[in-house]
């Protein structure tokens, strides 16, 4: 599945980012800024950041990574580089997995930076294992990447691409238990949320914040991984060598 050309592509994507320092700074610092605002708002009730901090550790990076990957692939499409790539021996999987690999690496760094910020600056004190929380938060960010890759296939213009996030992510955020516990939602919305990847990402982090261990969240983690694989497969299959 993963070949030499996958790594060439991942390395090319990282090289491109290296020339764009401001984007890297935004990726690393933007989630910290958002989390910092929340922590500041609830400075008098530290219980809030202990309870919701881990959840935000997953949600903020996921939003950022979704946007970045969906714009990155759209850019390839519009600059003609994708058309050229598709006439070379690169396999479609090399292209998608190369992007996923590069951004997963970035997501991991981002997760570590954000967690360090949450613990040392915001004073987050989660009940569950911190490393497990980091792991699931990174997994959520990777989920954001691959959902962005899959969604970008549906967008043909920049205007459409930027709306893929509100279209794909916001309904999942709303029904994922952020506003209302899922068991209190109307039945149909509860069914909807059960079919959505983000629900599991948020559930696992909420449980870990409350002191759950790996055994308690392994079902949800398995679901996230399955959705990551599914979204990758979708992104690979919707990529076309021949375009109209």
């Amino acid at each position: 599945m993963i070949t030499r050309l996958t790594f060439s592509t991942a390395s090319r994507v990282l090289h491109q980012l290296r020339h764009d320092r401001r984007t890297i700074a935004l990726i690393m610092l933007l989630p910290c800024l958002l989390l910092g605002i929340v922590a500041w708002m609830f400075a008098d009730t530290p219980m809030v950041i202990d309870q919701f901090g881990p959840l935000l550790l997953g949600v903020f990076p996921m939003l950022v990574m979704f946007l970045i990957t969906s714009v990155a692939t759209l850019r390839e499409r519009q600059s003609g580089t994708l058309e050229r790539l598709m006439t070379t021996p690169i396999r479609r999987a090399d292209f998608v997995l190369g992007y996923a690999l590069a951004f997963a690496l970035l997501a991991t760094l981002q997760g570590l930076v954000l967690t360090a910020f949450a613990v040392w600056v915001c004073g987050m004190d989660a009940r569950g294992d911190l490393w497990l929380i980091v792991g699931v938060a990174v997994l959520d960010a990777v989920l954001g990447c691959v959902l962005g890759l899959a969604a970008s296939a549906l967008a043909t213009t920049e205007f459409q691409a930027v709306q893929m996030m509100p279209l794909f992510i916001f309904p999942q955020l709303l029904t994922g238990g952020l506003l209302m516990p899922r068991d209190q939602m109307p039945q149909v919305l509860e069914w909807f949320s059960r079919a959505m990847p983000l629900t599991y990402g948020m559930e696992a982090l909420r449980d870990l914040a409350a002191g759950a261990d790996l055994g308690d969240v392994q079902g949800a983690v398995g679901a996230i991984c399955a959705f990551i694989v599914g979204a990758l497969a979708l992104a690979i299959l919707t990529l076309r060598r021949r375009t109209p």
Partner: protein
Amino acid sequence: MRNNQGPAIVARGLRVVRGGRRGVVVIDGMDLEVPAGQLVGLLGPSGSGKTTLMRAVVGAQADVTGTLEVLGLPAGHPELRHRVGYVTQAPSVYGDLTIRENLRYFAHLMGAPETDVDRVLREVDLAPIGDRRVGVLSGGERSRASLAVALLGTPDLLVLDEPTVGLDPVLRRDLWLLFHRLAEQGTSLLVSSHVMDEATRCDRLVLMRAGRVLADETLPELLARTGAADAEGAFLALVEQEEAAA
């Protein structure tokens, strides 16, 4: 000729629809044979179907029906991805990488040796600025960087969509010399242009208009047949003949 004794490209009853389900028929029933090892110019006004034909040849175009063979294989065959170099009209290189980084990446993809990077940089005369970011290059430099990518791995067929547009006359002459050198080494080239004057640079011409082939011969043959003084005059004469016949 390399690896292949037959023609470089053969089209029989080629029909191409662009733009998907509600698209337009850009090429409708084209027959064409492009000989191997020659520099063939694909000339015609903007909108005549040159880009669509080239996209079909390199296997980037959907909704292609009829027969289209490239180096003896159906267009878009996986084996051709190693043997055909393609330059799109808009330079398709990564603006946020240096020229050299672009070339290194595409060399990996084509399975070309690392030494090819320096060779193609010299061939398009970009060696002194190889470490410059593509985003800061002039339009002409950028299109030469895009051309350099297509030269990696020494393909058997080069499909170049308007590679000389916007270049200064000296560079344009140098590029045509490069194309001739490649043809002498056995590469087949299909080079499009909407500038009729470039006909004099080609071994053979294919004149296109409204998705059809108006002429497919050498320039002297074309001029003798139409009695025109240059390619532009010949093009006009052929269009007038057609309109008179209709």
